[in-house]
């Protein structure tokens, strides 16, 4: 499978300018598609545009609910109007980079997630964890949390089962899915699904979470539940 079908209008992308810093990922999305070419938004970071000239090579990373994909391509030209963006060459195939870095398990853990705006006001609270891994958590809600992105920060607080020490960290929204159509809503009565990555969490805490995930998985297997 060449995975090319994951490219669609509006698909969010992360862009790395290979000639420059390989550590910096700029955000973009697909604005148009035609034969062999994709128009993507001018890559930006924290609201600042990043100009990439024609003929330069970029790496494009696509994160979906289940996996991360990437491909290298070339910028064909910058377009200034009417739709601003970069035309890039559509790849012939897209590599599946990894299923995910950490083992993710579905688990029912009480948590408190708050969205705190720039004035310190709490805009949203939720408490339904769907799954957890060493990299982050995901939750179901009835409220569309995308409306809060850029308005402040999401803070999550929870304890792993049989542990007293709380884990409190800022998280970043990395994936959102609208479940309001019937197809997606079969498995839940919530309207939205959101995945967050941990932002300021130390290695020791990641190890604790990973250890818990593995033990939980082993326990489920032992009980014949998976």
């Amino acid at each position, binding site marked *: 499978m060449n995975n090319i079908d994951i490219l669609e*209008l509006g698909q969010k992308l992360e862009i790395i300018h290979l000639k420059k810093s390989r550590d910096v990922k700029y955000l973009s999305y697909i604005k148009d598609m035609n034969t062999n070419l994709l128009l993507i*938004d001018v890559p930006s970071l924290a609201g600042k545009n990043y100009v990439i000239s024609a003929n330069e090579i970029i790496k494009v990373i696509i994160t979906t609910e289940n996996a991360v994909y990437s491909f290298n391509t070339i910028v064909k030209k910058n377009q200034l109007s009417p739709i601003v963006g970069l035309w890039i060459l559509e790849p012939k195939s897209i590599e599946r980079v990894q299923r995910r870095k950490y083992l993710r398990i579905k688990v029912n853990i009480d948590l408190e997630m708050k969205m705190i705006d720039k004035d310190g006001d709490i805009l949203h609270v939720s408490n339904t964890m769907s799954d957890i891994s060493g990299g982050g958590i995901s939750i179901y809600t009835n409220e569309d949390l*995308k*409306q809060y992105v*850029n308005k402040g920060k999401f803070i999550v607080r929870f304890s792993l089962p049989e542990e007293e020490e709380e884990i409190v960290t800022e998280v970043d929204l990395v994936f959102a899915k609208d479940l309001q*159509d019937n197809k997606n809503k079969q498995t839940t009565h919530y309207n939205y699904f959101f995945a967050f990555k941990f932002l300021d969490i130390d290695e020791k805490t990641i190890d604790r979470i990973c250890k818990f995930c593995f033990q939980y998985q082993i326990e489920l297997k032992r009980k014949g539940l998976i």
Partner: protein
Amino acid sequence: MDEKIKRLEALVDQNSGRKELHFLLAENYLKANLNEQAKRSFFNAIEIDPYYLKAYVRLGEMHILDDNLDKAELIFKEVIEKNLDLSEPLYMVAMTYKNNGFIEKALFYFKKLLQVDRAYFKAYMEIADIYFDQQQYDEATINYHKAINIDSKRITLYVKLAYAYYMDSDSKKALHILNEGLLIDGSHIEIHVLMAKIYSDLEMKKELDEKVEVIRQLAPHMADEFCQKLA
């Protein structure tokens, strides 16, 4: 209505919280000359993210194109006031004015930007480009120099500065700057071509022949083109 717009409208309906989709829909409305719908979609994007600079700038630009400068100015002031980091909004507003031919307004905002961030080399470069276009080569060279002082590795600046000196009939300084540029990128074809042009003007035949040979090695078609122009 075209198919693309219909698809985007459906996508926006399904993802109403994604500001960039409202923005993309607005751009497509603009392309289809559906200006009122475009304005509404830019507004929708701003409603989702009141700091969404790109949407403000495009909305302001629409008012410029409608000859409604006062309204454009109000929108630009709003986005500048909202953003804590002023550099990017000021730069984008200045560029919007420049791209639409309002040079004095553009200069005003570029200069305002430099009051906020003296190290914003692109502002010096844009100011220099404006003075260059106005044939005010003294002002152009001053500002290119300022840009180079901030970002001394950017080869385009050396080419532009040298060209400004050349247009100001100071070929000696132009050659000096071009030689500095070659220390950064010895195979930069534009530099070699401009040097050849200057040698030709100065009737420095030996240097000209050597330079044409260099151009021939780097880009044979450009050497042929250059020789045809000389002939």
